[in-house]
């Protein structure tokens, strides 16, 4: 690449690591145990190719056997277990999930086939892009002994409802048929991906440590020949980004190219990125500092947090700040009216009522605290994890159990969950023998047995 092109590139792309050795490696966990990320991935890919080769050889002889025999004597083909085929990297943005895959591919001399959230990932488009590449090795590949490949399905949490319909089942079938290892990346847990989580291992990647990031940033500054960035500013950039290396590099480029010479901390603040940290602060301030309606309004207006989101946080955290039942009831009354108003806005587009909504969910809730606030001690602000589903829907595990029940005893899903399973829990809770009898008869495996246990133990 010519010098001029390189200069125009975003630094993030320009300095994307070419090899694992150049990388700032984040620490990672597998099922709660700490692991060496680079080593683990390298091992994963190497064992995949080794085992796949062995299985392909076995399958070849089975296939030729099947061709000569009738349908009844057909033998089943061997398959690699799904957790050996695919792996999921889950971690905050900018720690190098995508980079590590590319660096690894470079080190091992592999090609990367990537699909990310900018592609439409419906069933069809995924199939057309991946299915052919994963199944066969192509005629050209045999002739030229081309490189092996890695399939990277990036930003998998960006699979969106209607637009990317049917993507998850397609990915599962691709996992079954692939000739190449699959690495998936995602930022956070998503319920719609549960079928995937059940089948494959998840590596949880932690944010980068500040020492590591400082090292990389200094390297970049040296290569760009920038000397006038003070130590303090670098430190505040690092602090601001919470281990998001990509964010840091972008910030660095922003301040050093935008206005060299006029570097100050205000500029860095203007590069501030929205993060969950901010919501925690807003919630704390709302309950502990705000004492007038106006203050509440200013606080909610000033924060960039979506109100759509914020009022759910308020709902989740009311009990940790307001303890008195008399105040609780006022707070919830206001919040519930706010929710009602919001529902009507959504349904009928009565946007003129939005100001009431704002005042009620923020000011109305926090000003319910009449008694002297006890601002001592740490109060836990928690993430609104719970979502009540309007529709009847089952998790993957429950569905499996209900299907197995249905084989022996025909009964609808709703009856099974609300009537039959509770009885089974009581029955199998009486003794180990009963549990064994029931689960043997229904042919449940270990994870499905847990559903029978979950309630009775408590």
């Amino acid at each position, binding site marked *: 690449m010519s010098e001029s092109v390189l200069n125009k590139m975003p630094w993030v792309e320009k300095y994307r690591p070419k090899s694992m050795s150049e990388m700032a490696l984040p620490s990672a966990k597998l099922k709660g145990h700490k692991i060496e990320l680079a080593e683990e991935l390298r091992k994963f890919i190497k064992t995949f190719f080794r085992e796949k080769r062995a299985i392909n050889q076995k399958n070849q002889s089975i296939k030729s056997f099947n061709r000569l025999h009738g349908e009844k004597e057909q033998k089943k083909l061997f398959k690699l277990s799904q957790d050996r085929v695919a792996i999921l990297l889950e971690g905050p943005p900018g720690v190098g999930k995508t980079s590590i895959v590319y660096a690894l591919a470079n080190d091992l001399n592999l090609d990367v086939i990537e699909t990310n959230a900018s592609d439409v990932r419906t069933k069809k488009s995924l199939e057309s892009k991946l299915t052919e590449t994963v199944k066969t090795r192509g005629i050209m590949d045999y002739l030229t002994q081309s490189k092996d490949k890695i399939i990277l399905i990036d930003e998998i949490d960006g699979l969106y409802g209607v637009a990317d319909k049917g993507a998850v089942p397609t990915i599962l079938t691709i996992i079954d048929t692939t000739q190449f290892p699959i690495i998936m990346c995602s930022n956070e847990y998503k319920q719609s991906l549960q079928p995937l989580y059940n089948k494959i291992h998840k590596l949880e990647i932690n944010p980068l440590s500040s020492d590591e990031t400082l090292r990389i940033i200094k390297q970049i500054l040296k290569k760009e020949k920038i000397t006038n960035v003070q130590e303090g500013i670098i430190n505040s950039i690092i602090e601001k980004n919470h281990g998001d290396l990509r964010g840091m590099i972008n910030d660095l480029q922003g301040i050093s190219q935008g206005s060299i010479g006029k570097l100050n901390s205000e500029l860095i603040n203007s590069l501030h990125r929205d993060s969950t940290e901010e919501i925690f602060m807003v919630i704390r301030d709302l309950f502990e500092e705000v004492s007038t309606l106006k203050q509440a309004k200013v606080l909610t207006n000033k924060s960039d947090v979506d109100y759509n989101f914020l009022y759910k946080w308020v709902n989740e955290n009311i*009990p940790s700040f307001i303890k008195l039942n008399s105040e609780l009831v006022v707070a919830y009354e206001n919040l519930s009216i706010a929710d009602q108003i*919001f529902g009507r806005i959504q349904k009928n587009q009565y946007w003129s009522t939005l100001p009431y909504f704002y005042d009620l969910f923020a000011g109305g809730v926090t000003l319910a605290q009449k008694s002297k606030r006890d601002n001592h001690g740490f109060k836990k602000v928690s993430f609104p994890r719970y979502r009540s589903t309007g529709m*009847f829907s089952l998790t993957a595990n429950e569905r499996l159990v209900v299907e197995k029940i249905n084989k022996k005893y025909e009964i*609808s899903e709703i009856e099974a969950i609300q009537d039959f399973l*509770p009885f089974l829990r009581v029955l199998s809770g009486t003794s180990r023998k009963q549990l064994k009898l029931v689960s043997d008869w229904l042919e449940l495996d270990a994870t499905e047995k847990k559903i029978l246990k979950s309630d009775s133990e408590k």
Partner: protein
Amino acid sequence: MTENIPIWRIKYLPKSLDEVCGRSKVKNRLKEYIKSENFPHLLLLGSEGIGKKTIAKLFCQEFLGSFYEPNFKIVYADVPLTSEERAKARSEAHYSTSKIGRLAGKTITTPAFIHVKIKPFVSIKAMGDVPFKILIVKNFETLGSNQQGFRRLMESFGSNCRMILISHNTSGIIDPIKSRCQLIMVPPVDIEEFKIMIATIAKNENLTIDNETIEHLYKITKGKIAKAIDLLQITSISDNNVKIDNLYENSMVFQNNLIRSLLLMTFKGQFHKARELSRKIQSNYKYSVQDLFLLLYNELSKLPLSTYSLSLLINMIADADFRAIDGRDSDIQISSLLSKLCYYSEFL
């Protein structure tokens, strides 16, 4: 019976119409249908859990004989469609070919439920030596506006497929459907028949149970056979000699015990715990918000409260239910209701 089934309610499931406990009038009527090899669309009515579905299924088995498998289907109207089924219905909607008029160029869709679950079955010809297929639709009253779709279906495919609709009450069913069906009321099982059945099971399982206890069992379970057998089995585990006390103790275990403890928790003013419990109930039992409010209401009316306070509390539940329909986040409405119960119960 060689297989040893550990769950009694399945073990003692009747294998033929004759084995069904009691209800001789209904059984006789159905047997006549079998004899004449013909029957109109049926609408079975009766309260929850008394065996309507079991009777209907056994009837179909005997009516269709060896061609039972391909010509029989049971559909549960209250189970919502999965996303795949919904997508299928959407993709199979077709464009109108007419060039003029209201329908020109429009997509024509049938209701997704009927398109996915009913049509494919009723429109295919019956297989084998049977006069027609049989479709059972359970909890028909929950279909709501989809009931309208059945009006034409029952007429145009009636000769190919007869339907047996099962419902708890007639009030939820639209008149045009009622007029197309023969109504059959399925009564709860008689106490005398019930006694005989329980005595047979007790003999089989080497239990001792006296007459009075069986009467109590009948009372507790309100004649619901599956529930009664469940209760009997649980009670028998601790002691082969089934006594009234044990029966009551165990019946507490699964008669909406959780809902009651939720209410008691709010009466003690423990909001935080109550909210956790209500979330647990919802996720474990998959109750919708409306279900939960209804259960709370039912449980509340069983408690010994004065009329005044009862009406106050019911008012709160009704208000919360109403707001939940309007609002976006039902969890807020549930929390709001719980906080109200926590606070106002102090004054009752």
